[in-house]
């Protein structure tokens, strides 16, 4: 751990890394490689090199500040080791008391978004108004235009905060829906077992 630090001390990438860590400590949301390159007026490849140096320095178990790649960019967070101390001092207003209805609505918007309240209600089978309102208030989803026809309903999509709270690099990091439910095959197998037991 000491050698890379000593190396960058005599290396111009070290200065760039210091600028990048300065940007990350004041930013209010994850910064993309492009944003970091624009702000530092430096080469994206050099910014990447600086980021990988910082990732070593600010690694889990090594530092209380951890650099993570999340929501399409890079951001600092507290180490998991410090979670209990954080819980004593801060709140988690975004996810506290998230209802089952809100989670289902969130799943629908994340996978099918942008989508409207009527679309969510059609899939869930119950009105989604209060779930949608609570997700908007928490900043997990946001308006994203209206349905195409005139007088159409407002549509919603997930926000970068959603990706951040759930620790996703991007929406593409959500598991494929096909990988989630294996139970049809499982049901068939159990039925088959019963049938075989009866036959024998």
């Amino acid at each position: 751990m000491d050698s890379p630090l000593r190396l960058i001390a005599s290396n111009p990438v070290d200065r760039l890394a210091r600028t990048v860590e300065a940007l990350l400590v004041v930013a209010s949301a994850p910064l993309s490689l492009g944003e970091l390159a624009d702000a530092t007026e430096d080469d994206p490849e050099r910014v990447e090199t600086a980021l990988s140096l910082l990732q070593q320095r600010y690694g889990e178990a090594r530092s209380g500040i951890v650099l993570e790649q999340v929501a399409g960019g890079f951001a600092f967070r507290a180490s998991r080791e410090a979670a209990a101390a954080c819980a004593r001092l801060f709140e988690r207003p975004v996810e506290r008391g998230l209802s089952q209805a809100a989670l289902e609505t969130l799943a629908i918007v994340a996978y099918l978004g942008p989508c409207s309240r009527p679309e969510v209600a059609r899939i869930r089978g119950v009105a989604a108004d209060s779930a949608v309102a609570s997700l908007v208030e928490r900043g997990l989803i946001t308006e994203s235009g209206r349905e195409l026809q005139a007088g159409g309903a407002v549509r919603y999509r997930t926000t970068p905060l959603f990706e951040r709270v759930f620790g996703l690099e991007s929406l593409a990091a959500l598991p494929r829906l096909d990988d989630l439910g294996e139970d049809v095959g499982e049901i068939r197998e159990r039925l088959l077992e019963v049938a075989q037991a009866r036959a024998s």
Partner: protein
Amino acid sequence: MPATPVRELELDLDAFEGPFDLLLTLLLKEELEPREVDVSAIVLAFVELMAERNELDLEACGEFLVLISALLELKARALFPDEAAELGELEPEEAARELARRLAEYRRMKEAAAWLRERLASEGDRWFRLGPASLAPREERRLAPQDPEALAHVLRALAHPPPTVSLGHMALRFPPVSLFLERFRALLSRRRRFDFDAEVGDLSRVEQAVALLALLELRKTGEIALDQAAAFASIRVSRADEERILEWTARSA
């Protein structure tokens, strides 16, 4: 009605753990959402129970079919409240395919929601700052010149009537269980007993299934007594206090 293994069937579902008839009671009291109930797991539990017994209990199978179809119907209606009629206009095969497609879609979404919940738990020890840092410069937002026509345009769109939805085919509706609860209570306040089949004979099969659920609920709460001369014979429904009085009279006589 003799006790059958059906209502005592022990279930261990995600949303519920206990005997089948308690599940029905919770559904009827609307303390449990039908969409939370995994019907396939109930069917599996029943099939496994029947297999264990190693004898064919036709009566149990019959009762199970009635209850499970009522439950399925409840669940389908809860999932697609306004679209049953629309499905009704399709050919049966198409309707079945469409229903299966939507159920699969809903099921996948439920699984996605479960994944999100697990993720929330596993990421709960990642803390980060919400909002700006205390010693950060203030962000300035500047807006390019805008066209005022855009304002007129969005207001016109807001004044545009929404597409109308035809409600002409909404006749097909699933009656709430409470309707039958009230109806049977009213009936028993006027008469001491009535014949179930005669009372619901004119109704659709869906309505009959709901009526039967209402009957089971009333018996569960001790408001009525049920009596059936033989399997498949008509069910006689009587006030519970009526029966208690008769019993008491018989004992003291």
